[in-house]
């Protein structure tokens, strides 16, 4: 497989994945761009992996989780709240508020926890694969998912009551 073939088929899914991780299209673009530049420069190493796709996803996830000091994070802080220009979210006012609340709660989770939620509930990956991507044990994946869900549930209760 060449880099071009990989990018042809995988760039769009990676970008969607990055949108779910960051919650913001601009950040997602930056994240994917930085990762894919490194993928292209190190293509020989990437293609040697058992599954290049998973390897790249791991690179991207690490980039997202680790880059505390990275330049794209600084830009993120300056940019403020993510775009709310969504189609089809206006008709049922109350439920739309509820929905968008979930999205904003997500952004307050620790990044690793958010990554586990995206990998399980958006990418529908089995826990073993999530563990591989995050470089941790399966048990750790499960505990951070349940912790993240508990946080979200607590927010729910607060709003409803």
């Amino acid at each position, binding site marked *: 497989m060449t880099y071009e073939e990989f*990018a042809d088929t995988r*760039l*769009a899914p990676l*970008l*969607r994945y990055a*949108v*779910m991780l960051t*919650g*913001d*299209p601009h950040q*997602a*673009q930056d994240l*994917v*761009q930085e990762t*894919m*530049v490194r993928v*292209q*420069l190190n293509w020989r190493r990437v293609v040697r992996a058992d599954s290049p796709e998973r390897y790249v996803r791991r690179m991207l996830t690490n980039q997202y989780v680790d880059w505390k000091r990275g330049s794209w994070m600084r830009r993120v802080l300056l940019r403020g709240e993510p*775009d709310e220009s*969504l*189609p*089809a*979210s206006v008709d049922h006012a109350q439920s739309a508020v*509820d*929905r968008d609340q*979930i*999205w904003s709660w*997500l952004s307050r989770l620790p990044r690793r926890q958010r990554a586990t*939620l*995206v990998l399980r*509930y*958006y990418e529908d990956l089995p826990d073993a694969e999530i563990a591989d991507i995050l470089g941790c044990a399966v048990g750790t994946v499960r505990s951070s998912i349940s912790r993240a*869900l508990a946080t*979200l*549930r607590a927010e*729910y209760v607060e709003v409803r009551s």
Partner: protein
Amino acid sequence: MIEDDLRAAFARHEPLTPPTGPLRAAIDRLAIGRRRRRRRWQAGGTALALLGVLGLGVPLLTPERAGPPPTAELLGESARPAPSGALNILLLGIDGDGRTAARADAVLLVHIPADRSRPYLVSLPRDLGVPIPGQGTDKLNAAFPFGAGFTRPELTKGYELTRRTVAELTGVRVDAGVVLTYRAVRSLTDAVGGVPVCLPERVRSVHTKRVFPAGCQRLDGAASVDLLRQRYGLPEGSQDRDRNARLFAAGLVRQSTDQGVLTDPVRLAKLLTTVGPDLVVSPDRGTLLDLLRLAPTLRSVEPVGIGLPVAWPTGKERYLRTDPKLAPEFLTALRDDRLGDWTARHPKLVDEAR
């Protein structure tokens, strides 16, 4: 159910995903730029390593062109050589492939005197207790990981902190430097067709059980790395390992001269392409290839190996320290570019030739 709400939230935000076309173009553009920069760096690195290791000096570096600013005299990091024309090149051999935290276990200062008589290889013991800028006193080899960081080390930063440490310790200005990983040593050695080394005593590898007999032998890349790692079982441990590193560097010089690597452009180009990617070099010197093209030779390429004179720790001391009598004298000679006199007065402290 919160899980279902999550799934729905993710699905609903899919339309946020921007188009891939412009992104892909941006990626390609950035990758081209970075690749070009990396190549320039690698070529520069190889040239520098050759200059350093082969000890082929650079007399035409024109100190009078622009001249260093006055402040550069305070151990300044001037891009130009001292007015005297002496050059100091720092070679760091790190214990690993550079992907995980590594220490600089071989710290070698290549000194090329202004009269271009011959190169001097001065090794600084890794166990020497030295003030590391910002880190208090520690072993010399710790400066590298302090600078580079412990996870995903950045070799250039490790080099930089070690360079400052060495500059403070010795008082000499370091003009340029190279970080050699195991892989770099391996490919450099193989690229010149093996390196002849004459060992004063037998060395047995604790890593591979390979035995290097006393006497002269030719080592390939893998054997060289193996030898350079050994200190257990040697009479004076890492001091003897430093000596072996100096013998190896001297052998590399001889071999490259015999092969005419620098005078044959085809061979040089080949070496650049095979070794280049494995070298990391101080990024601040731009015109290394130009320097190499000048290819001026020293009067003799037979290097002189010297270990910085040290005293063993006594009592509660934790580190090696510099010999209170010999070291200041040696360092003054190094700073003043009078190593020729010094070695003549202290023949016992110099490695035996061959």
